């Protein structure tokens, strides 16, 4: 397991190590820095995106939370993402359970199929979904959004839950059966508690996937149904004030908190299980 100790010392010559970790640090910085830039921008006193921000003001936040279109967008996105999360966790877990006993070609084909929304371009399914939902009168409706986004979000749950199931000791299910637990009872009392971290991470990914989704939201939305990302997307071209930065900061903050919370809860679970 400890591969780093296995590689000989010659590899980790001083200069080599410095260069390697230096590079990693640089890349890490350039990945994080852009997001951090937004935070000071959101407090800019000026009415533009110019950097460095002049003056300090919280008015963009005020603008954000008092503006009807922005708050409506946030609520809609949040609402849709929540429902999508619940649905995709159920579907994703069912799929992971179903696929866990399969092997070979059937398994590869079915998982490939169910994972495809993650890999295929959103535009491709977007065109199809838009065309079909027009026929079914599901455009500009919450239901349509939920259905389309669930198909997109389920693969994320499937991935994490399948990984959790892989590390799950099947003998525990036998032990439960020998104690008299029906397959359903075994799932809820033994399997589920132990794969819960996988479900939690999957739920997080599913939520983010739906919350941030732009392409299908653009297709399926309507004048009354403009989710937050669509709102933000148009805001870049239409407005030119840092309200967008304020929205972004809020999103970054909330996402970070959610990730932190899930990680802490998963951590606590793996350390001996304080129920």
């Amino acid at each position, binding site marked *: 397991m400890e591969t780093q100790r296995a590689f000989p010392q010659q590899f980790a010559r001083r200069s080599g190590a410095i260069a390697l970790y230096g590079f990693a640090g640089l890349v890490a910085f350039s990945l994080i820095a852009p997001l951090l830039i937004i935070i000071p921008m959101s407090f800019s006193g000026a009415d533009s995106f110019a950097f460095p921000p002049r003056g300090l003001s919280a008015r963009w936040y005020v603008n954000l939370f008092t503006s009807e279109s922005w708050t409506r967008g946030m609520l809609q996105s949040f609402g849709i993402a929540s429902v999508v999360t619940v649905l995709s966790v159920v579907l994703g877990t069912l799929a992971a359970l179903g696929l866990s006993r399969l092997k070979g070609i059937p398994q590869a084909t079915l998982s490939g199929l169910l994972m495809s929304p993650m890999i295929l371009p959103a535009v491709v399914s977007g065109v199809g979904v838009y065309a079909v939902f027009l026929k079914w009168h599901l455009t500009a409706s919450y239901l349509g959004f939920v259905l389309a986004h669930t198909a997109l979000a389920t693969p994320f749950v499937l991935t994490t839950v399948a990984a959790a199931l892989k590390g799950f000791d099947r003998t525990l299910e036998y032990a439960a059966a020998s104690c008299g637990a029906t397959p359903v009872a075994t799932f809820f009392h033994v399997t589920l508690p132990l794969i819960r971290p996988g479900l939690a991470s999957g739920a997080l990914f599913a939520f983010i996937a739906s919350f941030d989704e732009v392409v299908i939201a653009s297709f399926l939305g309507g004048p009354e149904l403009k989710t937050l*990302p669509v709102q933000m997307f148009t805001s870049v071209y239409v407005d030119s004030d840092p309200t967008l930065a304020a929205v972004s900061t809020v999103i970054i903050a909330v996402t970070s908190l959610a990730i932190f919370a899930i990680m802490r809860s998963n951590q606590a679970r793996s350390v001996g299980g304080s129920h």
Partner: protein
Amino acid sequence: MHLPSGTTSPDAVRRAGRWRFTRTALVVPVLLFFAAFFLYPMAMMVAKGLTDTPAGAGSWANFAWFFDDEANMRIYRHTLWTALRVTLFCVLVAYPMAYAMLRAKGAWKLAILGVVLLPFWTSAVVRNFAWVVILQDRGVLNYLLALVGIAPVSILGTSTAVTIGMAQVLLPFAVLPIYTAMQKIDPNLVRAALMLGARPIVAFTTVFLPLSLTGVFAGAFLVFVLSLGFYVTPAMLGSARETMLPQLIFRQIDELLAWGHASAMATVLLLTTVGILVAGALLTRTLRHRIGGTRP
């Protein structure tokens, strides 16, 4: 419900019946959902490309329109070209990152992983907006350059900006497969090379690098395929010259309601994606068979 200690009623045995609990059946509702809200729409889209044609024209009219139009083809080529550029950039950056992750211990390993995955978790619009702020003419980059006395550069709207934006989010898709492949390499192989007299650099290039190639290829194909679908990044960071196929498709529907054209283009994009995925999977599998070297 349970066998009472001592007796089994014949009824209980009969009621239990064949208990072969087919867990696999759980997949069925999910497949049905997918069939209805994902597969059927895509099938409809492909059909539309073939059926939504001007009166009198054949089924392939939309496809002909796409391939005959030079402007369309330029965008298609540009999409492929950008994907290639992004892939190369990602792989070059991801390889050392994966290696650093391999060598790092404990918390540092997780830290690198977390950083690499970070853009994955942040909204596309937010990310690209950040790049806009940095790369715009009066942005952070030019501000910093000015501090050092360098003339301002105009990156926003160029392919460089698009590449950077796309690479940021696609990096984890390159790092993870490469890391996984590296992890599987038996450390004794490199040791053996050194004992046999190879200098560290040579041992690396002749032993470690080839064995990590399956990961590199897996990551490269994944990044390439994902690049083809990008919409928000080229829209926000690119210019008219940098238009990619997804934007074109969107415009055909949103502005022109040209369903036939849009569907045909989407079908082409779909087939390109699937084709490259399949090619990549086959290539990676052949590589994996030819190259062993995994830890015992």
